[in-house]
């Protein structure tokens, strides 16, 4: 605990101190680089606004992450079981993995309506899909031959084998995908706000503040985004710990 918490905290404090010293020492104008103290002041002035906007953006990211991960897991299951599906979906999955948000977000707003949060959630879901799908598929393929034969020896039904062996074995892989997907979902939900949807999230606030050179305020909202990302990251780590107690895969 000590060893995992103290070094990053010390590093973070040093980083912020150096940043502050640089801004103060070199008399950097706030429109070039805001001082941490100024950012903190903005956070302090407007915690309720940051909180509300974080809930909106975080909520979209969460919905997208859960939906994207669920679809990815189900599809990975099908692809692992049916080779044809795997080969058919390969180019589409590869394309989804390289889809830029800038390209899909405007299109999604047109397809699903610009007044709702859904396009943002879809963007987050698309971003979360690829890492979870690819990792889970790898995990599902990683079933050890001993375990597979054990299930045959027990005359287990396919569903029993899936539940007893395949799914639990794939969990660590699934989670390493979810870990990556978590921060991707947050950033994607946020960037998607740029192209439409209700102006209630962190993305809208950041652009708005930045366009007026209000970088201290902008970074106060970025701080909100970082905290949301951190919460997602820790939550997925915690979930992984809780679900996959008992240690490594073989």
């Amino acid at each position, binding site marked *: 605990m000590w060893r995992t918490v103290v070094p990053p905290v010390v590093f973070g404090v040093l980083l912020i101190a150096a940043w502050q010293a640089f801004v103060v020492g070199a008399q950097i104008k706030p429109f070039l680089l805001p001082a941490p103290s100024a950012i903190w002041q903005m956070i302090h002035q407007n915690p309720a606004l940051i909180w509300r906007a974080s809930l909106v953006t975080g909520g979209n990211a969460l919905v997208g992450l859960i939906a994207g991960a669920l679809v990815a897991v189900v599809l990975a299951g099908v692809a692992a079981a049916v080779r044809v599906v795997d080969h058919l979906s390969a180019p589409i999955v590869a394309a989804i993995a390289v889809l830029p948000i800038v390209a899909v977000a405007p299109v999604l707003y047109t397809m699903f309506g610009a007044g709702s949060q859904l396009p943002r959630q879809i963007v987050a879901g698309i971003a979360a899909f690829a890492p979870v799908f690819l990792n889970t598929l790898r995990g599902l393929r990683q079933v*050890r031959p*001993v*375990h597979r*034969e*054990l299930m*045959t*020896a*027990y*005359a*287990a039904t396919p569903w*029993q084998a899936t539940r*007893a*062996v395949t799914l*639990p*074995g794939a*969990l660590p892989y699934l989670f390493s995908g979810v870990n990556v997907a978590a921060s991707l979902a947050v950033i994607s939900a946020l960037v998607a706000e740029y192209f439409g949807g209700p102006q209630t999230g962190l993305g809208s606030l950041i652009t708005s503040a930045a366009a007026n050179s209000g970088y201290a305020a902008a970074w106060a909202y970025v701080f909100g985004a970082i905290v949301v990302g951190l919460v997602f990251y820790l939550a997925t780590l915690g979930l992984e710990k809780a679900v*996959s*107690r*008992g*240690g*490594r*895969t*073989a």
Partner: protein
Amino acid sequence: MTDIDAVQVEQVSRVFAGGRRTVTALDDVSLSLAPGEFVSLIGPSGCGKSTLLRLIADLDAPSSGTVSVFGKTAQQARLDQDYGIAFQQAGLLPWRTVAANIALPLELHKVPASARKSRVAELLALVGLEDFASHYPDQLSGGMQQRVAIARALAEKPRLLLMDEPFGALDEMTRERMQTELVRLAAETGAAVVFVTHSIPEAVFLSDRVIVMSPRPGRITREIELGLGPAAERGERLRESTDFYAAVTAVREALHGEGAALPVGVETR
């Protein structure tokens, strides 16, 4: 023998049609096992020991010939759960506790929870792991893991036990203790055992009969009937007896072809 044979392998061949060439893993192998009999398969790497065991377990099908288990087809015997099996690697599920690993076959076959619980407790006691019921496999030593795998193989009181080098990963001392235990367990439950091993002393110590195989194509070259006394009485003393050494020497010679050592550089696998 008045009973139906536990295992009846008749003129079985198994040919693997690999990419470029075909490998004859078993060629015209016949073998029968009486109920309660303990038979070891020994032979160099690649002679088809595992293949034979897998055919009996219906994890693989013969290219020709028939395998019957307790008078049924191997498949029927598998579906009826007539055998328990243990592989070289313990093959425990790392996300299940020791107790849950042992309970796995019972769970899969819908044994009610209460019956399951008492059977697991029995088995834990049998392999001396009562205190480790709620440990996870990675918290156990290799020997303890192997014992869990054996308990799992015994869970449904099978009349036939199939074991593929189950002690390969153990150190000599633990291994010898496990051997003593296995002989006792087999005698107590009256199960027939097919036991694959690379170790001559192990085969000799455990078995009623040792079957020596040779590779390419996999064939049975010798069967050696041993008379080392009733299972229950085997122990440390036996390992140091002259009878034991004589039997070991006999198997060694059957195996190595009367001292004709192969030249270095020719692999046997």
